[in-house]
């Protein structure tokens, strides 16, 4: 598919989405569903407000710490478990537990343990995301061709060379896909945790708008969280992906 066609299809999809939204909004009350215009109007009002950037930064800082920690833990454990089966089996019950338990239960328990605020939000995001990174890294490492490890062994590669020149490039394609999933889920979980147990952040403002029946503001905050995901995917992850997979461009 040509680039021009891709852009046209993308724009058509977006227009259809907005048209459906507008149609549904015209059918029901403003209290239930705000129209795209109302939402956009509220959104511009929000971003010109002082507290908006403060609330946004609170959520972004939480997201940054939670994603960094989850990626670090999941990646390191995934690489080791991919090479040493004993760790894979040892961690299997933990992974199963964390991937099966509904996030809302973890939020409720974390609120009991940590109270409301930063620690709780970061804790549950790390707890729920690291198994996804772990399992994808572990599976990808398990499938790296043993030829590369023989090469690294014969030519005495350092651990840093093994990591940067074998592990990361060899698993970069599945790893990039995982990072996109984890970033999207990260925003969802942070916002969910903030809705349920925080005094600041996007989630808190969402809960606030909801309890005040301020539907337009609620939708405006949803737009903010969508923009965070888009920003992370296009501005942060896309360049990383292009860099890691640059050698494939020539194929």
């Amino acid at each position, binding site marked *: 598919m040509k680039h021009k066609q891709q852009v046209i299809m993308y724009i058509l999809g977006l227009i259809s989405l907005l048209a459906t939204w507008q149609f549904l909004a015209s059918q029901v009350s403003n209290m239930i569903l705000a129209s795209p215009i109302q939402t956009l109007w509220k959104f511009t009002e929000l971003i010109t407000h002082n507290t908006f950037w403060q609330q946004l930064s609170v959520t972004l800082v939480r997201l940054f710490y939670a994603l960094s920690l989850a990626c670090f833990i999941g990646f390191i454990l995934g690489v080791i478990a991919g090479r040493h089966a004993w760790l894979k089996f040892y961690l299997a019950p933990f992974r199963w537990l964390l991937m099966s338990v509904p996030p809302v239960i973890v939020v409720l328990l974390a609120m009991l343990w940590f109270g409301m605020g930063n620690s709780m939000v970061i804790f549950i995001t790390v707890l729920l995301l690291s198994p996804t990174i772990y399992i994808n890294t572990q599976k990808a490492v398990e499938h790296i061709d043993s030829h590369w490890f*023989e*090469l690294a*062994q*014969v*030519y005495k590669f350092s651990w840093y*060379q093994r990591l940067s020149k074998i592990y990361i490039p060899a698993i*970069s394609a599945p790893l990039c896909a995982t990072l996109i999933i984890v970033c999207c889920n990260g925003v969802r979980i942070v916002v969910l945790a903030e809705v349920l147990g925080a005094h600041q952040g996007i989630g808190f403002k969402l809960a606030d708008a909801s309890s005040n029946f301020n539907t337009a503001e609620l939708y405006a905050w949803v737009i903010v969280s969508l923009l965070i995901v888009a920003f992370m995917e296009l501005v942060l992850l896309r360049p990383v992906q292009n860099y890691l997979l640059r050698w494939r461009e020539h194929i």
Partner: protein
Amino acid sequence: MDSLMNSPLNSLINNPMDRSTHTSVQHEMPLVTLNKVTLTLAEQTIFDNLSLSFNAGDKVALLGESGIGKSSLLKLIAGIYQATYGTLHNKALRIGYVFQEPRLLPWLTVEQNINEVMKAYGVNKAQRTKELPVLLTQVALNQFRHYYPHQLSGGMAQRVSLARAFAIKPDLLLLDEPFSALDSQLTKQLSLLLQNLLTPATTMIYVSHYLEQVLPLVQLCLVLHASDNTNKKTFTCHSTANKNEREQFLHQFTQHDFKNKINKVC
């Protein structure tokens, strides 16, 4: 066969620690010694009680029918496999290994593939910048240094693999049928290149099915045999240092019963 059995390396096969009988010209101590080594992989015994040694500077061809364990022996010497029983001493500090396939990291360019190996051996940046273009020119790939492996032909990729092995100035060079996937013309060219890059001090163990290309490069040929009912592997050793000996060896090959097995893959 009797005269061949008295060749220098053979005395070491039977009695690896006996230096008095070893008349090889180069150095005093063996570089690689296998003492009663048993290798078991996936519950299958590849070698049983194998003793063998190689001196510094030896250029040896390792022959034998397919699947007999030639590659396993190279991997054992390189440290990729560990001996199940017995001891293996390898005093080589820098091992160059040319695999059957080029085995270049696909996400690194030609230059980076060689550079990483030099880095691993602690060659500093100034030296790397100085030596890399010289090495790449030797293998006629200097203008392709920014290419990725998938942009190279099979012959070019194997030349990079050779250059990578020589980039660390190896004291032990292990070649595992390096040109088997290439046509005979390319194999000839690469054998010549290998001949030019080799130094007298480098110990070389060369596994190949292309006898005619290997013989000019080696002084000794080790032929690996499997006994019919056990896993016990035995060697016969043949000196091929001069033309007469080489011809005699080829003649022996055509006479001896293991010739048929080898010839199938030649």
